[in-house]
């Protein structure tokens, strides 16, 4: 076979496999969309309707009637925003100290951080519940947000990143009499933008999609996050798949929007953070 023929097969193969993979990824979403437009009767019609014969938005209406879904959406947004902001603030301050400052017993402290990363969250689940109970935080937004103060992984990630920032900038600023707070906020933070941007996205996603911890903490319908709202819909209307699929679809939209917006920003951040050495 000649060279050109080989190339055509290569290109065709690429698009064939990519298309196949795309179909595999999208089939469940197609089924979700199709189902969410059906009436309850059409759910159990045999043979199944691949595309709803009488599409309607009744299921979407029911999602909002049966559960304070708008409220849940605001709860999720609020909790995730605060959770992310607190994670970034607390972790970046600690990382600044570990990466750039003299700290008493630095080695011991930092090893302690690494060690806590090995304990699975399930181990601390029950004691944390007890502590939240003592602090009278059970069933409050605070209980879901507070764990953001200590995220060993976030600290570890930012330390690795900040270590690569040359000390020259800081030393120059210090000679000019800049305070540590200024150095942290005006020099180190801007230079860590790419790492902070990607950490923000993953933290936001984690908080948005978290299930076990809010499940344990929140029982008031008005305070529930979107994942809990879906879970609760599932508990009450197990067989109304049109409503469950409509709810699932609604819950996916915000995070996809945030991700696409943020990943665009991240590319810019990568450029802005590029430093000459």
């Amino acid at each position, binding site marked *: 076979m000649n060279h050109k023929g080989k190339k055509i097969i290569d290109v065709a193969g690429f698009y064939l496999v990519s298309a196949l993979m795309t179909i595999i990824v999208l089939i469940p979403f197609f089924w979700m969309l199709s189902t969410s437009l059906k009436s309850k009767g059409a759910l159990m019609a045999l043979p199944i309707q691949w595309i709803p014969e009488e599409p309607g938005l009744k299921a979407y209406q029911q999602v909002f009637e049966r559960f304070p879904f708008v409220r849940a959406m605001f709860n999720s947004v609020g909790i995730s925003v605060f959770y992310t902001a607190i994670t970034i603030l607390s972790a970046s301050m600690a990382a600044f*100290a570990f990466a750039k400052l003299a700290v008493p017993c630095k080695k011991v402290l930092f090893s302690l951080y690494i060690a806590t990363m090995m304990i*699975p969250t*399930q181990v601390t689940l029950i004691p944390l519940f007890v502590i939240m109970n003592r602090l009278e935080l059970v069933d409050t937004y605070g209980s879901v947000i507070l764990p953001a103060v200590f995220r060993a992984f976030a600290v570890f990630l930012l330390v690795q990143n900040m270590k690569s920032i040359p000390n020259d900038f800081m030393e120059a600023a210090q000679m000019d009499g800049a305070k540590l707070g200024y150095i942290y906020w005006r020099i180190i933070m801007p230079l860590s933008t790419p790492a902070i941007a990607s950490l923000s996205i993953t933290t936001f996603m984690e908080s948005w999609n978290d299930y076990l911890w809010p499940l344990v903490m929140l029982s008031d319908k008005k305070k529930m996050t979107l994942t809990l709202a879906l879970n609760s819909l599932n508990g009450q209307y197990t067989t109304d798949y049109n409503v469950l699929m409509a709810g699932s679809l609604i819950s996916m939209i915000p995070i996809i929007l945030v991700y696409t917006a943020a990943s665009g920003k991240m590319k810019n951040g990568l450029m802005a953070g590029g430093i000459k050495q």
Partner: protein
Amino acid sequence: MKQSKWKSIPFLLPSLLGMVVLSLLPIAIAIVLSFTDWNGLDKLNLTTIRNEFVGFKNYISILGSAEFWQVLGHTVYYIVLYLPLAMLASMGIALLLNKGRKGTAFFRVIYYIPVLTSWVAASLIWKWVLSSKYGIINNLLALVGITGPAWLSSPVWAMPGIVLASVWKDMGFYGLFLLSGLTAINTTYYEAAKVDGAGKLTMFFKITLPLVTPTLFFCLIMSLINAFQLFPQVQIMTEGGPNGATRVVVERIYTYGFSYFKMGFASAYSWLLFLIIFILTLVQFKLQNGWVHYES
């Protein structure tokens, strides 16, 4: 940078306080609780702990129960099915995206949508996709003349169903991760191989695969740890059923702790989970010398 040691304390304070209250103290409490039969209702203080102290009873009764070993068996079953499928699928995705052909940006977004979907939504979707009569999978299979299994309502097929959902959800994540490993490979290796007349398969097995092993190793560690912490998909898709066929460790911890209020028992369970993960990770690190190649 020169500065007094103590000036760094204000920066560390929030995080350190957090570590003590949200991590070290809970860990200490978890150790103590695992030696008691605390029911979650009595006020937790020293007297309660003394009165409800049971020594190693929780650990002994868990290790001696058939249930624990069954639950571990289910997890192993999950891993045996999940790991090869997930690694193959994500390697496929990484290799496709690494070609850099037109449309790569589009496919990249598509493959990442399941990763962005919450496990609750994904589990609900898959529960319906896998419905034996009305689900799309069995109806697609019927088109080519195959009668699909009952999936989530069959003790044999429930776990494979959960595996399918998990692979579908995770392959984009590990795929993009492996992609970053692939793009880091120095192109001069390929050029040199081409000059020597190496074929595509040879290049894949002699260059790509060995050089991507560090990333692959990281993916394996992460996915094994995650596999032992399997929870939301099980809780929503099967609740451990049918007939206990998909009960897994975290599902048991949640059920014992928050449905039966056997908090001490559940704590002991969680420490056994930690031990398993810890030992497995250590073993993997020991084994890596055999197959992971680091560029020197």
